[in-house]
């Protein structure tokens, strides 16, 4: 019996609550956020506790835990989930002059419920040897029959594809986008599988000529320690689509303070730190993401790709249209 009680106590392990701490539910992987948080703890003395996981599961946990949730900050890797969390009434507005100064208004919630911390653009990569940049123009053109059996893209279950289609829905309307999606599916060289790096490798070996990927995957391969990854990445080139029109599709990683937070002050300060120059530089150097503020330099690889015009669509629209986008892709047969 005594053992049972002891066991119960270890299991329950009622955590003492310190004044100076921030608890984070993060959809960003540990390796891509923890070093930054450690730096913050070192500077400020504030303890930062972390649970990583899938965004939707973390949001569900936050929702079910209700007012007693220990989480102070929700970190996601796309805007759709932040929007969903706000819709579920899980986030609190943050009033911070520093955040509004650091982060341009298109990259935060109109009422400051969430803030972008880094930008991730979805681009076209093409086989250097067989395709020339002049053959490429827009996302829309990927559905052109000249690319039949030549395009690779990952599953439509992936959020980056979902938000791209959501953005296109805003710009082009449902009928046009559905036609486009059908055309794209007809152009696929193989049924969607794997992640973005897989699509790059498929282009490198000639399984397809073009692929849709996020920039930091390509940068990650180029700076990889594994030779095969670098070789594959060197066989492809990057193309910024829609530069003569609305601009390339951009999603964000971002964060919001939770409604139930017991440490709102600390959470705000951490958010401010994450939008500060030091943290922004870290994102750029270590995961090759684009900083949200223009005064922070990007990594060398990113510099080599030059400047680009980004779609300035209000990001919250992406979250609103996500379910419609998935339905559309289901109908188009995009697996």
């Amino acid at each position, binding site marked *: 019996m005594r053992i049972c009680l002891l066991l119960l106590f270890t299991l329950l392990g009622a955590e003492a609550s310190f004044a100076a701490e921030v608890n984070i539910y993060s959809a960003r992987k540990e390796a891509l956020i923890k070093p930054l948080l450690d730096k913050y703890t070192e500077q400020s003395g504030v303890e930062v506790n972390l649970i990583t996981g899938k965004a939707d599961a973390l949001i569900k946990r936050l929702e079910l835990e209700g007012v007693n949730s220990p989480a102070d900050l929700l970190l996601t890797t796309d805007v759709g989930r932040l929007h969903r969390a706000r819709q579920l009434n899980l986030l609190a507005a943050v009033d911070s002059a520093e955040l509004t100064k650091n982060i341009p208004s298109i990259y935060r919630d109109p009422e400051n419920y969430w803030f972008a911390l880094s930008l991730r653009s979805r681009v076209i990569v093409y086989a250097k040897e067989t395709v020339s940049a002049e053959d490429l123009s827009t996302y829309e053109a990927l559905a052109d029959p000249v690319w039949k059996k030549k395009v690779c893209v990952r599953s439509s279950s992936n959020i980056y594809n979902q938000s791209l289609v959501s953005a296109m829905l805003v710009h082009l309307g449902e009928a046009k986008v559905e036609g486009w999606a059908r055309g794209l599916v007809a152009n696929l060289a193989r049924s969607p599988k794997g992640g973005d790096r897989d699509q790059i490798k498929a282009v490198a070996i000639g399984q397809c000529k073009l692929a849709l990927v996020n920039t930091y995957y390509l940068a990650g391969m180029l700076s990889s320690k594994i030779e095969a990854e670098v070789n594959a990445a060197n066989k492809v080139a990057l193309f910024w689509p829609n530069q003569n029109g609305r601009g390339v599709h951009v999603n964000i990683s971002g964060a919001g303070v939770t409604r139930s937070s017991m440490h709102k002050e600390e959470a705000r300060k951490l958010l401010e730190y994450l939008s500060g120059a030091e943290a922004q530089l870290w994102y750029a150097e270590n995961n090759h993401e684009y900083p949200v503020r223009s005064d922070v330099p990007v990594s060398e690889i990113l510099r080599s790709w030059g400047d680009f015009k980004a779609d300035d669509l209000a990001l919250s629209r992406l979250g609103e249209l996500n379910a419609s986008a998935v*339905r559309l892709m289901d109908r188009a047969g995009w697996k």
Partner: protein
Amino acid sequence: MTSATLEAPTPSLATGNFHPWLLLLMLLSLVLAIPVVCIVFSVFLPGADVWQHLYETVLSSYVVNSLILLAGVCALAMVLGTVPAWLTTMYDFPGRKVLSWGLLLPMAMPAYIIAYTYTGMLDAAGPLQSQLRDLFGWQFGDYWFPEIRSIGGAILMLALVLYPYVYLLCRAAFNEQSICVLEVSRSLGCGPCRSFFKVALPLARPAIIAGLSLVMMETLADYGTVQYFGVETFTTGIFRTWFGLGSSVAAAQLAAVLLGFITLVVLLEAWSRKQARYHHTSTRYSKLRRTQFTGWRRFVPTLICIVPLTFGFIVPAIQLLVWAKQTWSDVIDDEFLSLLAHSLELAALASLAALVLAVFICYGKRVLSNSLSRFIVRLLSTGYAIPGTVIAVGVLIPFSWLDNRIDGWMRENMDISTGLLFSGTLFALVFAYLVRFLPVSMNTVEAGLSKIRPTMDEVGRSMGLPTLAILRRVHVPMLKGSLLTALLLVFVDVLKELPATLILRPFNFNTLAIRTYELANEERLADAASPALAIVLAGIIPVIILSRSIAKSRPGHD
């Protein structure tokens, strides 16, 4: 003699009057069934709009793919499991001893990891095909090569790591079969092959079915492998519906359908067995004399048995080693030991708890032997087929509700806040493991119990022993092998578990499986190799203990 005999069902030992077992059993299973019940009740929530969409677009391919996957994995796992089990029990051949435990090793390999390794090797961009292209000057498309990331590939991957369930239970069954019955079949003119198909295999049916049902449920619950291979199954559909369409209700309803399907299959199997019970009617065992081949034919069984071991363990393990050698210095940090400790801690806690519960529940069912207890056990056995994420939500719903109620009451009456007592702690996590893995230990314990003849219980009772004492003094000693098996199976399963751990774990608490997933999910397969290898190594030890105990467990064996 041992044989499948048709017996009347054991009469209830608790006819008519109230029995404390019933109360205990009801209470336990009521609590454990909450997550499953939560899922089932989602059926009554409105979600028709999403269903209409699913029905018109993707539902049929979810169902068809899941059925193909299920049939393929079961068939392949059955062959890979029963044949080596038979060979290692009945024949003597070079390497038999090593193979008889080595064949269990693939169990330590999580399905998503074997999928990553084979993709790394055999994919169009992988080293094998690249070398072929370089060697012959081919371009992609000039030659044919099987696509590993396909439904066929998924069947192969899952069968390679799941067949040990069939092998394990089958081997135990063959081991326990009395040689006499086989000698009778031989003396009646059946060759070794016919004896296998006509006598040994039907006798091992409960074991094969128990093994296959574990395989089946693992297959249905698998998300990592099929998602990576781009195969749309019912389970990937659940997550697409939840994450993509944003409908957690429709997702839970899909999970409820999955539950219904599993229940149906279990019922069908029980019905097809009808009243047959498989007790040993003889306790006479002679020493097993293993047949020996001569000449080159000696190596035929060796070669056959080496196949599943090679492809299910050796090849992927070597690939992991190669990757780990390139990257371990970056990946193995100070935290690595704590990852290992957390993994082992959770596995030990959950497997022990599952064992104790399984023994009580199965024994309770045996003592009561009424339809209510059978229903309860059946309800609890469905958890294994539910994807871990869904179970986790099913655990969060009641616990966070309870926590918030307690907190509200305490605030109102005592002016203190208790916060979250259960959810967000290891308690909730271990509870989720129990819901998911209890069927594994129950299955094993029940298979063991069913082989103990009811007359043993009667003897105990006639000697005036109370029910619990019979369990302790009669059944538990006879069940030692099964209990160990149950313990270790859950241990290894928890080591590999990912989705429930991901959602339910407390702050700053990581395991090897989580580290592996986070790296592999970023497509950093080489970096993921070190933690993956650590899972495999941690899983090997219990697997070896397990196989040694089986070898010793043969009745009449010295």
